[in-house]
């Protein structure tokens, strides 16, 4: 069974009298352990697709299943819980809380999930270690670089051991060197068994994933696997997730 299954997902926005079709019948299956990129020009609907994948937005019609469970018509409270337990987000603008320090930001999803305080801290330190930021745990966000900030965000995304990591232009605000560091980190996480979907318009980054889905005007126009199967197979058969 696929981790993610989308059947004929349509998203329409009503702005005054004009209706915009953001997604026009998306069919998509993602297996556990895949590392895929969603690419396309701005306005193509890739962000909307990402938001629906992340349960931040709901489709106008169509079916969306995670682990075989239908996601439509769920009340807000359930969606919040599903986001908390199933999905880890990485955003272009980092979206860390500036009032919290590094480790407090990583702890946040665990706090909402009700993880006991001692355990939270322990795991947060472990996660920061896995993104090479153990020594920055008590730094404030304005004391670390952009690349480091995004690594904190990735550590946060991993906090509740999500089944799916969604990264929306994770390198959009970073220089080339930091960008590559982030992509390398994502690759490492993928090799450790995580399922990762990134949205990007940078072809170099997309090329480093195992599958590229190209969207145009709300429809998938191409679904290619540049570096096919080998890594995917090993990831699937190997033990899932170290971190």
């Amino acid at each position: 069974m696929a981790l993610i299954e989308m059947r004929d997902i349509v998203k329409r926005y009503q702005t005054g009298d004009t209706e915009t079709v953001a997604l026009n019948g998306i069919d998509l299956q993602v297996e556990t352990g895949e590392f895929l990129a969603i690419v396309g020009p701005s306005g193509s609907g890739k962000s909307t697709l990402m938001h629906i994948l992340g349960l931040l937005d709901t489709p106008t019609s169509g079916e969306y299943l995670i682990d075989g469970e239908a996601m439509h018509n769920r009340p807000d409270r359930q969606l919040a819980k599903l986001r908390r337990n199933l999905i880890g987000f990485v955003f272009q603008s980092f979206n860390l809380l500036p009032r919290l320090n590094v480790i407090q930001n990583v702890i946040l999803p665990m706090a909402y999930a009700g993880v006991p305080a001692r355990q939270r801290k322990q795991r947060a330190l472990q996660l920061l270690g896995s993104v090479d930021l153990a020594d920055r745990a008590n730094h404030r966000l304005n004391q670390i670089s952009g690349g480091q900030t995004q690594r904190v965000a990735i550590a946060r995304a991993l906090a509740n051991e999500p089944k799916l990591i969604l990264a929306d232009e994770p390198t959009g605000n970073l220089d080339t060197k930091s960008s590559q560091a982030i992509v390398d980190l994502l690759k490492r996480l993928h090799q450790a068994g995580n399922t990762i979907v990134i949205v990007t318009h940078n072809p170099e980054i997309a090329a480093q994933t195992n599958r590229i889905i190209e969207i145009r005007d709300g429809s998938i126009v191409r679904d290619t696997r540049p570096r096919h199967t080998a890594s995917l197979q090993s990831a699937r058969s190997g033990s899932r997730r170290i971190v």
Partner: protein
Amino acid sequence: MIWENVKMAFRSIAGNKLRTFLTMLGIIIGVGAVVTISSIGAGLKDEVGKQVSDLGANVIFVLPGQVISSDKNGKQSFNPTASIGTSTLTEADVTTIRKTKGVQAAAPLSLISGIVTHNGTPDSSALLLATTSNINDVIASPKIESGRGFKPNENEQFVAVLGPNARDTLFGKGADALGLTISIRDHTFTVIGINASSGSNSGLSQSPGFDDAVFIPNGTVKTVTGQEPQIFRIAVKADSQSDVKPTVDRIKTALKKNHGGQSDFSVLTQDDLLSTVSTILNALTGAIAAIASIALLVGGIGIMNMMLVSVTERTREIGLRKAVGATSSLVLLQFLIEAVVLSLLGGALGVGLALAGGTAAGHAIGITAVFATTTIFTAFGISVGIGIIFGIAPAIKAARMKPIDALRYE
């Protein structure tokens, strides 16, 4: 989660100190005013209670004019001006009261106008009172500290008993004035006794400030002023505590007969005095509370305003929190707790202000402000209530945000 929200609230408050302080100002002023006034009110009540109980048990005061009247519903109203003006009480009334069953002793007190001087030094704050020799049998305070009181046969002798303040002003602080003389309207009186201090005077009490008093015998008044003394109080000592009420009724009946059937006088027990003072203070406290509640309302609106601004400012934060798994109710709780922490902090500062202000104000008017635990807790309770009432709308606004819209907010 609640504790984390509290910590979070403090963090966001610390991040905006000036704005937070300005927001809390209404609450600080409102709570501060209410707590200050009630502490001073309670202090005054204690003070008056002390003064009244200092006078001794079973003391009844008879006043000219109908000070307390009851309407047909039994609701009592207090009219202090009724006792001002030409007195309706006479020497005959004193005699009548003395003869009334249940009365142990009765002494008239008359206010005499005239400046008291010693060697040309005037005591302009002296309260010149004429009374009879048995005054110390009727009221327990003031007590004689040195020398002696009037003897029954001295009613027409030119002798005087001074309160400690009067002594200090006329003769110098702590001076031995016994045997020395004072002058009242060209008449010379010999000082035979000094009263002990009866404590501070609130000025709100029904009993005059005895520390400033100069007592002279009743029988000398006509010689000094050319008029019969105007009796403004008759102090009465009843036989026993349990007998006070019927004795009051008997005095009323007897005096009414003296006054041709008119109740142009008041007979008040210590309880009446206390409840009169309480009535005045409660009315005063109520009025201040009404004004303060406007400050609290304004303070509450201030909190609501700031929370609305804060929610808008933190739209992305709300979106992020929801994205990482915060349910709407947790977001609601977060902002509600922040509002409550804000108003509670305001309340605490208000209470602090009141502790300082009440103590200072009490000091200024010569009483000890009393801070009842219930008052403090009520103040905190009201603060929490305001936080909830005015914080709920912004919190709901935050909770209702759709995560995707909130995250996209610029």
